[in-house]
């Protein structure tokens, strides 16, 4: 009993600092349809791009388009409250889109294998993020 009272007193006396990390862990930003749509765009464009790796010009245009969506998603997610857990994977996805765009800008001819593997990995990464954020709680209608 004494230990229990001591534990409760410790929590009460130290305010919310002890339990705050626990609360933060489970307070998650609600489902955001714009964020979800942007991730879906990246996934879809990467999927289409992977099918056009025979055509350098088309894949280059897809790379540019992915970079635009990547930066748009990164900026959009940045200031959504309680969205820390999404920011990190989104930044990594953004970095992938930067890399592919840079590659097409600096290299005259990009290998077909690179094209296929790169777009496939962007598509799969976007799908992982989409799956996670799609499960987020929907805003309450009440």
């Amino acid at each position, binding site marked *: 009993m004494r230990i229990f009272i001591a534990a409760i007193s410790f929590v009460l006396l130290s305010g919310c600092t002890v339990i705050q990390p626990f609360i933060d862990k489970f307070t*998650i930003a609600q489902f955001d349809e714009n964020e979800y749509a942007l991730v879906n765009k990246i996934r879809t464009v990467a999927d289409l791009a992977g099918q056009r790796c025979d055509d350098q010009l088309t894949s280059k245009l897809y790379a540019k388009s992915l970079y635009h969506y990547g930066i748009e998603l990164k900026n959009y997610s940045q200031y959504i409250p309680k969205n820390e857990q999404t920011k990190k994977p989104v930044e990594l996805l953004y970095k992938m889109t930067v890399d592919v765009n840079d590659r097409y800008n600096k290299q005259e001819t990009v290998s077909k*294998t690179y094209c296929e*593997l790169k777009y496939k*990995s962007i598509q799969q990464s976007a799908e992982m993020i989409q*799956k*996670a954020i799609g499960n987020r*709680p929907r805003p309450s209608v009440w």
Partner: protein
Amino acid sequence: MIATEFHVLALQADQLVSEYKEGKLTADEYKELVQNMNMMQAISQDTANLEENIVYRNMIVNAINIATALA
């Protein structure tokens, strides 16, 4: 990381190494794709953590709702 994602990553890593050995990638492209695999692994871990937290959060909310309804 869930098993399916791990399997996808493992397959992709295998493909990457074999294609490089066959000379279908430049050294620079290969290096970038290896970094890419690491990023994918990190994304997989982060999203798995997020999904786990969503599950716990939903359990807590459900428990609170049930307790409120009973009160």
